[in-house]
C-alpha cells in the first residue's frame, strides 16, 4: 500500500471521528447534566420541584414554579410582540417589496442578528426600562388588572424583558419566514391571481396556507431563542425572588437567570448544585423538543434550512 492511500485512510478516519463527536455532543451534554441532577430528583418528588413556590436553598426548599412561570410569562409576552411584527414584515419583504428594498433590508437584518445579547440588554436598560417606568405610572392610574403594578415599578420588569427579547428575535423570525415564503412556488400565486384575487387575498388564502408549517417553524425557533436567553433578560427583568408577577410591570425571575446568578455559591449548600443543574436540564429539554419540532417541519418542507 502506498503512502497516498494510507494518508487517505487515516484522514478519512479522523474526519469521521470529528463528525461523530459533533453529533454526539448534544447527548454528552444531556447525560452530564442528568447525571448531576439525579441527586435532587431522587431527594424530592417532581410535584414538589415543579409546583413548589418557595426557593430557599439554605432550608432545602427548591420550588421551580416561580422560575418556570417567569420564563413562560416573559417569553409568551415577547412572542405577542414578535409574531405579528416579524411575520408581517417577512410577508412584506417576500411578497411586496421591490428588489432594491429587499437587497438593502435583508443584509441589514442579517447583520443585526449577530449583535450580542448583552448589547440588546444595555439598550434595554438605557431606553426600554425608563420608558416602561413611565408607562407604568400612567397605566397604574387606569386600574386595569395585569396593567397595574403590584407596587411602585422601577421599569425593570416583565414588560421590559419581553420587549428586549422581541427585538432580539425579530431577525430570526424574519429571515427564516422570508426563506420559507420565497420557497412557495410561483404557480401557487399565479393560479390565485389569475382567478381575479387581489394580492392580499392570494397571500392570505394561497401563500400563507402553503407556507404555514414553515412560518410556524420560524416562530418556534424564535421562541426557543427567547426561552433560553439569559443575559439580556437578566439585565432588564428586575429579578425578585419568591415573587409571582401580578402585572406586566412587576419583576420576573426566569429560569436561565437563576442559573447565571447562583452558580457561585452552589457548592456550599447540599443539593443546591444539583438543583441548578436540573434547571439547566429542564431548559435544555424544553428547547430540544421545540427546536427538534421546528427543524423536522423545515426538513419536511425542504426549505433552505432543512
Amino acid at each position, binding site marked *: 500500500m502506498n503512502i497516498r492511500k494510507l494518508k487517505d485512510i487515516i484522514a478519512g478516519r479522523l474526519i469521521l471521528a470529528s463528525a461523530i463527536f*459533533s453529533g454526539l455532543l448534544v447527548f454528552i451534554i444531556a447525560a452530564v447534566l442528568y447525571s448531576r441532577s439525579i441527586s435532587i430528583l431522587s431527594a424530592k418528588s417532581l410535584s414538589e420541584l415543579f409546583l413548589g413556590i418557595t426557593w430557599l436553598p439554605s432550608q432545602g426548599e427548591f420550588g421551580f414554579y416561580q422560575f418556570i412561570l417567569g420564563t413562560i410569562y416573559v417569553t409568551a409576552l415577547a412572542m405577542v410582540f414578535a409574531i405579528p411584527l416579524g411575520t408581517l414584515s417577512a410577508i412584506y419583504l417576500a411578497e411586496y417589496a421591490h428588489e432594491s428594498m429587499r437587497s438593502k*433590508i435583508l443584509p441589514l437584518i442579517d447583520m443585526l442578528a449577530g449583535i450580542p445579547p448583552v448589547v440588546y440588554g444595555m439598550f434595554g436598560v438605557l431606553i426600554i426600562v425608563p420608558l416602561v417606568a413611565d408607562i407604568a405610572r400612567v397605566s397604574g392610574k387606569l386600574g386595569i388588572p395585569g396593567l397595574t403594578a403590584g407596587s411602585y415599578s422601577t421599569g425593570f420588569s416583565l414588560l421590559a424583558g419581553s420587549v428586549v427579547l422581541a427585538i432580539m428575535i*425579530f431577525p430570526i423570525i424574519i429571515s427564516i419566514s422570508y426563506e420559507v415564503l420565497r420557497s412557495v412556488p410561483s404557480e401557487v400565486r399565479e393560479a390565485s391571481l389569475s382567478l381575479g384575487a387581489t394580492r392580499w387575498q392570494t397571500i392570505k388564502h394561497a401563500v400563507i396556507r402553503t407556507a404555514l408549517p414553515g412560518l410556524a417553524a420560524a416562530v418556534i425557533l424564535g421562541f426557543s431563542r427567547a*426561552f*433560553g436567553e439569559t443575559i439580556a433578560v437578566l439585565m432588564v427583568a428586575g429579578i425578585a425572588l419568591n415573587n409571582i408577577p401580578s402585572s406586566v410591570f412587576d419583576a420576573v425571575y426566569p429560569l436561565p437567570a437563576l442559573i447565571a446568578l447562583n452558580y457561585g455559591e452552589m457548592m456550599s449548600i447540599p443539593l443546591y448544585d444539583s438543583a441548578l443543574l436540573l434547571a439547566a436540564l429542564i431548559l435544555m429539554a424544553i428547547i430540544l423538543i421545540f427546536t427538534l419540532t421546528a427543524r423536522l417541519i423545515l426538513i419536511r418542507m425542504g426549505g433552505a434550512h432543512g
Partner: protein
Amino acid sequence: MDRLLEEKFFKLLMLLSLAIVVGSLFMVVTVIVWKGAPVMTISMLTQTSKGGYYLGGTEGGILNAIVGSLYLGFGSMFLALMISLPAALALQKDYIGRTKAAYYIRLSLDILWGIPSIVYGAFGFIVMLYFGVKASLLGGIIVLTLLQMPIMIRAMDEVIRLVPQELKEASYTLGATKLETTAAVVVRQALPGILTAVLLGFGRGIGDAASILLTVNYTDNLPGSLLDSAASLPLAVFFLLSMPSPEVQQRAYASALVLLIIVLALSITSRYLSRRFMKNIIR
C-alpha cells in the same frame, strides 16, 4: 369588507410592522453609538481597569476586557475550526453524506445550535469542576468552542454541499484520492463559505456572555496564562453597567461599542470576502 380596502389595510399594517422592526434595530445601534462614542478615548482603550470596579475604582479603561475577549475569541475560533472543518467535510456525499448517520448528525447539530449558552456554561462548569480546573481562560475557550461548533459545521456544510459533484469526479478520474480531492478541490471551492462560517462562529463566540460568566468569571487584571481568569467585553457591559459610579458605567458603554464595532466589522468582512472570492469559483 371591500377587498381592495382590505388589501390597502394589510399592506399598510405590514409596512408599519417593517418600520417598527427596522426602526427598533436601528435604534439599538444608534443608542449604543451615541452612548459609547463620547467615552471612547485613547486611555479607555489602552489602560486596564484600576482599583477594582466593585470598590468604586474609577481609574483606567477597558484594555483588560478587550484583551480577554480577543484571547477567548481567537482561541475558541481556532479550536472550533480544527473540529468543524473535518466534521463538515465528513458530511460530504463522498464520505458519510449518503448515510442515515449524516442525517442524524445534521439534526443533532441543528438542535445543538438552539441550546442556550447558559446550558453550555453550566455543562462547562461541571466538567471543569470534575477536572479540578478553576474559572479560567482555558475553560472559557473550551466552552466557546463547543458553542461555535454547530454554527461553523452547519454553515460550512451548506457551502461544501454546493461544490459540484462533476468537479470532484474530474479529480477522481485523474487518480486523486478522496483526501487529495477534498483538500485541493472541495476546500478551495468552498473557501469563501468556509471563511464566512469561521467569522460567523467568531462573532457568536466573542459576543457571548452567559457561558463565560460561569467558566471564566471576571477580573481587572490581564491574564498571564491560560489558567488565569480574564475579563471580557460582554461581561464588562454586564457587570459595569449596574455599578453606581458614572465613570465605571462609561466603561460599559465603551465595551458595548467596541463589541458592536467588532461584530459589524465581521459581518461586513464576510460579505466582502464572499463577493471577492466568488470570482475564482467554478460554478
